[in-house]
């Protein structure tokens, strides 16, 4: 590059910055793929620390349930409040429940739960693993001849696959309930009309897709967070950088995957 461009030119600096970001992107992606391979190998063989898996499932589910329900519930109330009045005016009052339910099952519940999980669990996983890395705790595990993938990473990532669908189901039910209450209070829509419309508009396929998406999101969030934590270096700054990276990458990954799922299942 230096042969063709002058070092002080803006083009050169831009290309250099681009090269730096591209290198970080490719190496992070490579690290995630390597970690995925190692973890999947343990999960397929079920070579996992069961005690740790149970604890991580508890941590994943219990600690993130209030925030997940709050986010999904509130966004459902917002949508129902905005839409119910207008739909009733246009003569579509019988479709409010269906609209809210389809929105929740196909998109809102799973993506909002994903965001909540990134805040609550992804950042916590990344900072926990990064702290263990920079304080030599992961090296200590290796020197004690314990497999860190089996003990640390596989239980955390499998707990994401198990718990995220459960959280999404509970959040969906909570969101539908919130939508019904909001429609009733804001526009006087009866609960019966709302729930009749929900049953009319929901398909089992949508629910399966939602659960599958949730499992993939749970896997991806936990995988990215653990990987970013594992490759942390330096001290407190390294932990902070790893946490930020985990949150940013998880956000981008689940929005990107959501787009792929939308194209694959509903295009």
């Amino acid at each position, binding site marked *: 590059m230096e042969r063709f461009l002058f070092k002080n030119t803006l083009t050169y600096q831009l290309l250099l910055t681009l090269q730096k970001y591209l290198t970080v992107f490719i190496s992070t992606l490579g690290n995630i793929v390597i970690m995925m391979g190692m973890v999947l190998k343990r999960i397929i063989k079920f070579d996992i*620390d069961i005690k740790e898996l149970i604890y991580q499932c508890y941590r994943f589910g219990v600690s993130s349930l209030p925030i997940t329900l709050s986010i999904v519930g509130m966004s459902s109330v917002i949508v129902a409040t905005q839409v119910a009045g207008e739909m009733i005016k246009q003569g579509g009052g019988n479709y409010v429940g269906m609209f809210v339910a389809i929105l929740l099952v196909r998109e809102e519940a799973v993506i909002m739960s994903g965001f909540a999980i990134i805040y609550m669990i992804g950042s916590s996983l990344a900072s926990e693993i990064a*702290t*263990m890395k920079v*304080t*030599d*705790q992961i*090296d*200590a*595990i*290796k*020197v*004690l*001849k*314990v*497999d860190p993938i089996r*003990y640390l990473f596989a239980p955390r990532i499998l707990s994401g696959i198990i718990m995220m669908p459960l959280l999404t189901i509970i959040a969906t039910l909570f969101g539908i309930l919130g939508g019904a209450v909001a429609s009733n209070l804001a526009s006087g829509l009866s609960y019966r009309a709302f729930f009749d419309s929900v049953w009319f508009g929901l398909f089992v396929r949508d629910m399966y897709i939602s659960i599958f998406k949730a499992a993939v999101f749970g896997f991806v969030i936990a995988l990215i967070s653990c990987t970013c934590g594992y490759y942390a270096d330096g001290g407190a700054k390294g932990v902070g950088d790893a946490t930020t990276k985990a949150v940013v990458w998880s956000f981008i990954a689940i929005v990107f995957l959501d787009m792929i799922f939308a194209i694959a299942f509903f295009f």
Partner: protein
Amino acid sequence: MGIKVENLTKTFDSKKVIDNISFSVNDGEILAIVGFSGSGKSTVLKLISGLITPDGGNIITTGDIAMVFQYSALFDSLNVFDNISFALVERKDLRKKYTEQELHKIVKEKLELVGLSGIEGKFPSELSGGMQKRVSFARAIVTEPQIILYDEPTAGLDPISSTLIENYIVRLKNETNAASIVVTHQMSTIKRTADKVIMLYNGQIVFAGTPDELEKEETPYTKQFVNASLDGPMKMFAE
């Protein structure tokens, strides 16, 4: 023979951190590795423990290797009992070998060996730096290793705690007959614990001898280290 290192080489980012070094440590012997920060001391321990792989040379070891880390590296989410019994519970070849009762007995014995009793339920954050260090000693010896590596075991401790730790290093050597390597900056640690010493500078051995010889020998390297002088062949942050 505990540890035999032959022509060991390690390069990071085209810089030779360890440059063709050889040494050996017998069972029941303590080798101190000294040198300024960045001279490659801790890298040697990481190479011997298998945390990083060498670019060249051989490391021949007999038996299990244990390592005590500079800042203890205790698992902060586990209590003292779980920290010490960790390898016995989680290691593939040891898993399910011990009953809960046996585990408690072993942990109790190891804690007594490092002068701590009745703290099994405490978490690392509830212990002083010296106590954390001793718990990490107990964790290291729980699998009866034949090789024990100490990475700056007295770093960050007050002089009295340092002496206590140094006494435990010697005690563990006597109890286990393990071959030990202590990476340190401190003359007191070298004098109290080591049977022999090597000094590293720029990844190479610039002195090998006994602690007495280190103090008495009039080479530019040993003089500078012992007198903690800025003048001499060794430059801090050497390029």
